[in-house]
């Protein structure tokens, strides 16, 4: 038995076989070939298989994450179809007598060098794509495909690290857990694990070696351990926890289709927060009654240039259609100096949390804002769409934003493009200023949604990114709760509704407090939907 320690990033125990995922783990031999014609054929077969893999990855990425993230697999296919690339491989085999894998490796390196030497950061970065696609062919030739042949049974995926495209390759029902050598609690793997609700341990270090492949292991995402070849005692303890977990899980699943109502009959809207179409799918599977926060940033952060109206519309429309009759609230672009894409060309700021971000950025760049508003409005023709504006701190900002929305509506009317005339608008309450003037703001919009993370950071002057001051942070600070209460009273006085979409909304210790305040909607990440439903059903507000 070997117990490895790392950092647990998402809870739960799993027992299963280790699948050691090592992209490109084979070493390419330098041996010359006696049979060049045979090697050319092997290369062509491997190239065809690689194309098929890329096509499947493209389709998968398109369905899960949209055109922007899928495009790279399309480019990879074109690279493998490039006649210069093919000629180079054939030439090295037939004239240089290189074996097929070696010829692909040399060709990949040669083409990558061309890009690496170019006088352009973007093109320099493309050399990684050439190496990536070449490696795919090499893996097939060596029989060590980056595909997932070993995943005939659900497994614990063990890897050095996982990139987004690598993690995308695994069928979701075949992944028991993730364990990586590198990574921190904010690495890609960690975020992925949390949003998908997959147990994970990261930072396991060098102890993760290929010989673990196929061995039975116990992964404990709560305590951050991976136990390989567990002894009977460990296994029995893990099985006991697993059984309890499965029982809890079954109890949660049984809540699907049941109402979000307290014992004394108070109904709450239980919605989900999502950041892309894949998370939206998860949220719907978890039976969320709607989407309380659709973050639109991913469209911008993944792109090489401003996403066009049509590109945005395609995603928003699909999201609206996936929701059917359920409400989906899109938040307009919430981007700033700390979270940006290079093409935005934003100057570095001393204090980005209080800088040119979110609605301030959109109001300063009406062109950018109009493109998104038009796309959102057009999507409203296909579902139950609402729009909300982030980082509001004054009534003037709301008026300006609504004017922009009106401009977008007017232009669509002129062009005869359909949208929902009764589309609801709302604002995020995430600055203390917005909570303090909630009465005025409630007169301007249909609803409020409280962003508790920012509200707490601004109310307590406590930077949430700064690890060293977390000891001073009190997630249940009365100042924050009072600000929420103020906003709720103001909204209700004007006959408007109010929700919470920050992390506090999922905090079951506060559910009762929030419902007593009269909060109408709670929006939480997909894995938190059913646990929160259980909590709501257990409450009796009359007592």
């Amino acid at each position, binding site marked *: 038995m070997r117990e490895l320690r790392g950092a647990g990033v998402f809870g739960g125990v799993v027992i299963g076989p280790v699948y050691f995922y090592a992209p490109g783990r084979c070493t390419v031999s330098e041996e010359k070939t006696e049979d060049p014609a045979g090697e050319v054929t092997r290369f062509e077969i491997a190239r065809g298989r690689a194309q098929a893999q890329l096509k499947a990855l493209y389709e998968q990425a398109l369905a899960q994450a949209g055109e922007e993230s899928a*495009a*790279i697999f*399309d*480019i990879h296919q*074109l*690279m493998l*179809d*490039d*006649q*210069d*690339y093919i000629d180079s491989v054939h030439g090295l085999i037939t004239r240089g007598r290189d074996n097929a894998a070696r010829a692909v490796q040399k060709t990949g390196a040669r*083409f990558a060098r*061309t*890009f690496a030497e*170019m*006088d*352009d950061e*973007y*093109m320099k970065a*493309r050399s990684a*794509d*050439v190496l990536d696609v070449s490696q795919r062919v090499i893996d097939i030739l060596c029989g060590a495909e980056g595909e997932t042949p070993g995943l005939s049974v659900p497994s614990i995926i063990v890897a050095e690290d996982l990139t987004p495209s690598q993690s995308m390759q695994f069928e979701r029902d075949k992944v028991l857990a993730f364990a990586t050598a590198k990574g921190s609690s904010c690495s890609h793997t960690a975020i992925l694990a949390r949003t998908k609700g997959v147990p994970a341990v990261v930072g396991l270090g060098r102890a993760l070696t290929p010989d673990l492949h196929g061995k039975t292991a116990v992964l404990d995402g709560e305590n951050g351990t991976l136990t390989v070849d567990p002894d009977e005692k460990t296994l029995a303890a893990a099985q006991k926890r697993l059984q309890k977990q499965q029982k809890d899980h079954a109890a949660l699943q049984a809540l699907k289709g049941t109402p979000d109502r307290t014992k004394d009959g108070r109904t709450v809207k239980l919605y989900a927060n999502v950041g892309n179409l894949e998370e939206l799918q998860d949220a719907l599977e978890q039976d969320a009654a709607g989407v309380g926060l659709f973050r639109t940033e991913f469209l911008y952060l993944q792109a*090489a*240039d401003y996403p066009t109206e049509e590109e945005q519309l395609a995603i928003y429309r699909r999201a609206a259609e996936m929701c059917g009759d359920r409400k989906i609230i899109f938040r307009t672009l919430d981007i700033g100096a700390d979270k940006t894409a290079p*093409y935005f060309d934003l100057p570095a700021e001393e204090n980005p949390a209080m800088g040119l971000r979110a609605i301030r950025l959109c109001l300063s760049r009406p062109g950018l804002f109009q493109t998104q508003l038009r796309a959102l409005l057009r999507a409203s023709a296909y579902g139950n769409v609402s729009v909300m504006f982030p980082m509001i701190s004054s009534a003037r900002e709301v008026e300006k934003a609504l004017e922009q929305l009106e401009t977008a509506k007017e232009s669509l009317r002129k062009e005869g493009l359909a949208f929902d005339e009764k589309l609801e608008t709302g604002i995020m309450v995430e600055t203390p200023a917005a909570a303090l003037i909630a009465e005025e703001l409630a007169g301007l919009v249909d609803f409020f949604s409280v962003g508790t993370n920012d509200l707490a950071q601004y109310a307590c002057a406590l930077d949430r990114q700064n690890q060293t001051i977390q000891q001073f942070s009190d997630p249940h600070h009365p100042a924050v709760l009072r600000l929420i209460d103020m906003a709720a009273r103001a909204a209700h006085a004007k006959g408007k509704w109010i929700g919470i979409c920050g992390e506090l909304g999922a905090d079951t210790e506060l559910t009762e407090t929030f419902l007593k305040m009269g909060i109408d909607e709670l929006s939480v990440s997909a894995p938190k939907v059913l646990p929160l439903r259980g909590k709501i059903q257990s409450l009796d507000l009359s007592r």
Partner: protein
Amino acid sequence: MKEFTYVITDKEGIHARPAGVLVKKANGFKSKLTMSLGEKTGDLKRIFSVMALGAKEGDPVVVRAEGEDEEQAAAALEACLKETL
């Protein structure tokens, strides 16, 4: 032979995605299709060769089409460039 010049207006220049779009479009025609920037000439049916031109915003690229469907090819590529770049 058909020939036209187009000035790139996209801020990123001919990066991977538009190069992919152009190459796909070019492969739909029988004619020999090239794109030149200064002294460099690339085959429009080959993605590496198009990307290696490194055409940026403001660069004038010359597209040449030669073959039985050169008229249609040139027109289609011009439309494609206008739309994506």
